[in-house]
């Protein structure tokens, strides 16, 4: 690097929420022009630290000092930090879907000709400049931003920061919603920005990305700084980072599934087709055939947008798409899955990739969420709810899959992502399904919780359930599945046995099938 100028120093930062310390004497030193990663489990305090830095939590609500470019800063609002060139991009995209790309790039930072009047020529010219930094200069500036994919939208966020003359860019889980290809592109852009002298702080759970892109890593655990690793100086591996994060060695990220014999075929789907919900002649799923056996964990691998979630949702109560055709067999018998209720009655369960939007009622408590799907079948005599049985079973499942909460009456919205995911899992376990389709079961949750989810998957398989895991993380498919189907462009691109499963073989399936589908 050659540079050792420190652009940012956060000293002895302590921040408490109603008496509970979220940050306890945290120290962070960022060098000018480096990419600095913040690692830690969910709830460790990474986002809180960044909110302190960017002024979301104003000066005075925390203890400690922020020294930026040699000057002690007291930010009272986000605008204060932005004026100094510090821009934070949050996990949730802050774009207005129906406004154009150019308008979004300058949202909150409008280019004016006079007070209160927007200069559209200037807006478009400058937008183009900003978009060049992220390789999107050829996009139609007037197109509504929701016509772009998530990956490009994330890049628009970065362009937005560039338009503010950013010097220190903070990215909170920038690749959480992106597929491998988009993530790789984003990482390259980060390296480009680094060459242009922009300093980056990145928060991410994807350790392979961090070890690739970062120059140093600060690990936070339980609100305390544990250590800072430097590339080329310290040991630099995913296992080393995990050790820092969880405070102990994690020998195996995927628990072994032993004593789990594979039985007969439980579910078979034949010739499944579905069309886009709005564009009637656009076929999304093309003749998909899969089967899954008792005690077997089957993966659905593929890139984002390949049609895996669409397949699962169209299967589960025709919740996606139109003109759906195909047959579903449970234990050899043809069944209907036309409504979600039909699917549940036929012992199929589906956990969504987006637990907050599709999985949970965040304002309700753990118990109510857990029994939501099973209520009619298992917790009611006719119309009347058996609340006592609900409480008993909710307690049992809370223990069983280790939901960390004060009681089953705690509101689900106040739980961490990992615990929310466990509640979703329990909700579907309580319907006593024969087949569980788990869509991105570990998205955005920390290493420890992931391990527990994998253990729960293994336990269910041992009970003889058939399990389908949809995941964009190839490592996860390889680590958890007995067999996997690779889906690409809405069709099965290949089927791989455990012995054949590797990142290379999955990618090869995808590459081989690309473009072949079109007749």
């Amino acid at each position, binding site marked *: 690097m050659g540079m050792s100028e420190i652009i940012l120093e956060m000293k002895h930062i302590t921040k408490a929420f109603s008496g509970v310390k979220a940050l306890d004497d945290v120290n962070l030193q960022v060098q000018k022009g480096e990419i600095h990663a913040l690692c830690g489990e969910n709830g460790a305090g990474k986002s809180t630290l960044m909110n302190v830095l960017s002024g979301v939590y104003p000066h005075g609500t925390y203890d400690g000092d922020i020294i930026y470019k040699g000057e002690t800063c007291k930010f009272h609002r986000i605008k204060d930090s932005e004026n100094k060139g510090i821009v934070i991009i949050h996990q949730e995209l802050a774009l207005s879907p129906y406004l154009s790309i150019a308008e979004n790039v300058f949202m909150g930072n409008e280019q004016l000709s006079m007070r209160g009047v927007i200069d559209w020529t200037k807006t478009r010219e400058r937008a183009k400049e900003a978009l060049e930094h992220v390789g999107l200069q050829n996009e139609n500036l007037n197109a509504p931003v929701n016509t772009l994919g998530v990956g490009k939208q994330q890049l628009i966020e970065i362009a937005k920061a560039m338009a503010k003359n950013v010097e220190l860019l903070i990215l909170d889980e920038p690749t959480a919603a992106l597929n491998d290809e988009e993530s790789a592109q984003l990482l390259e852009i980060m390296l480009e920005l680094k060459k242009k002298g922009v300093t980056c702080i990145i928060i991410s759970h994807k350790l392979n990305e961090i070890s690739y892109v970062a120059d140093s890593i600060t690990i936070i655990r339980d609100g305390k700084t544990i250590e800072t690793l430097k590339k080329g100086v310290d040991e630099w591996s995913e296992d080393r980072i995990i050790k820092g994060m969880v405070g102990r060695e994690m020998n195996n990220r995927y628990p072994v599934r032993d004593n789990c014999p594979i039985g007969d075929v439980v579910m078979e789907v034949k010739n499944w087709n579905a069309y886009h919900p709005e564009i009637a002649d656009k076929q999304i799923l093309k003749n998909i055939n899969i089967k899954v056996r008792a005690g077997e964990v089957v993966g659905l691998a593929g890139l984002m947008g390949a049609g895996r979630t669409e397949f699962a949702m169209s299967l589960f109560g025709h919740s996606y798409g139109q003109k759906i055709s195909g047959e579903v067999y449970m234990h050899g018998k043809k069944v209907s899955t036309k409504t*979600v209720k039909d699917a549940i009655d036929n012992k199929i369960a589906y956990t*969504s990739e987006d637990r907050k939007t599709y999985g949970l009622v965040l*304002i309700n408590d753990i118990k109510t969420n857990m029994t939501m*799907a099973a*209520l*009619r079948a298992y917790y009611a005599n006719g119309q009347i*709810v058996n609340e006592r049985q609900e*409480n008993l079973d909710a307690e049992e499942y809370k223990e069983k899959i280790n939901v960390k909460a004060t009681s089953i009456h705690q509101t689900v919205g106040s739980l961490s992502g990992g615990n929310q995911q466990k509640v979703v899992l329990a909700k579907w376990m309580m319907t006593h399904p024969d087949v569980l389709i788990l869509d991105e079961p570990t998205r955005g949750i920390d290493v420890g919780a992931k391990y527990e989810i994998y253990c729960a998957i293994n336990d269910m398989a041992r009970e003889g359930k058939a399990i389908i895991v949809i995941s964009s993380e190839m490592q996860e498919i390889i680590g958890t599945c007995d067999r996997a189907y690779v889906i690409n462009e809405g069709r099965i691109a290949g089927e791989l046995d455990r012995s054949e499963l590797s990142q290379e073989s999955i990618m090869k399936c995808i590459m081989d099938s690309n473009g072949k589908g079109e007749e």
Partner: protein
Amino acid sequence: MENKKKYINLDIKSFGMIAALIIIFIIFYVLTKGSNATPTNINNLIMQNGYIIILATGMLLCVLTGYIDLGVGSVVALGAACAAKLVVEQGWPVPLAWLIAVAIGLAVGVFAGFFIAFLDIPPFVVTLATMLMGRGLTYTLLRSLTVGPLPADYSFIGVGFLPTVKVPLGEGSIDIVCIVVAALVTVGIIFAEVKTIRTNNKYGFANLVPWQMAIKDVVILAIVWFFFTRLGMYNGIPIQLVVLAIIVGIYHFVTSKTVAGRQIYAMGGNAKAASLSGINTKKVFFWVYVNMGVLASIAGIVLSARQGGANPKMGDGVEMDAIASCYIGGAAASGGVGTIIGAVVGALVMGVLNNGMSMCGMSTDLQKVVKGAVLLGAVVLDVTTKKKKG
């Protein structure tokens, strides 16, 4: 089993509104030098606000789904107009006329529910339409005139009383039936508490902190006894109170103990998640609005019975009172949160306010200002306390 928390605290929020109701009542007690607590006035409180309470129970279900029904005031008028006209001008038997009124409420509910649930038209728009259409039909039907007077077998539901057994007490007399009902309620409450504690202990669930439970029960029993002795010193138990008890009882049960109730809450909290959990959200939506139509027509019958006739302006703006009752009673505008008891208490808060301010001689114009401020204050309090917790 490891050591579990043995006691839980009383949910302040659900009890806070009852406390507010008592405080408001006491303030007016002082301001009116005790005349708001006379037996006559306590009786009036029920008689004047009965139909609002009926509307509030139905409205709560709409609010739980995250929306409101603006059309209820018009349905009140339309139902009442039809029933009154059939009885007074056509000489129909009262029960049949009531049935027609309820059928009209049902029809309006089906109409609104169809557009809302199956065509995805925003409830605000659909019910704004039913509000205008219902009011217009009422004016047309009544040719802008008042229909009345209504016969006694019609009006008893609004102004009648249960049979009484009066015994002398001090300077006046008191109705034994009221005392018996109060005693039954007392026994019922104590019995229910004991049963809850037993079940909790048996299964290792947490109980309320004992002193909090004692305070809660004492306050509730004090209200019950105060209320029924006052009624007993007047004319006994109004028929309206019986109607209210049945309706509130049914809806409290439905919302808290049945699958249908749970589905409404789940849908209001997150419609997408509810739908992916096997809940037919369209069906829930539809029935909530059908139900509102039916309850609005019943409220119309009660209101016309009390007024002794029907006029085209009746029930004008009561949808706002019903909606306000739900919000004052702790329901969330975004849906998924709220209770029937809360809505009833909210309606009573509005009623006690109206009644007290009128007795103080405050103009109806200013009363609206105060009601608006109370609504806003209640919701602000609700939202800010929630924020602190989070």
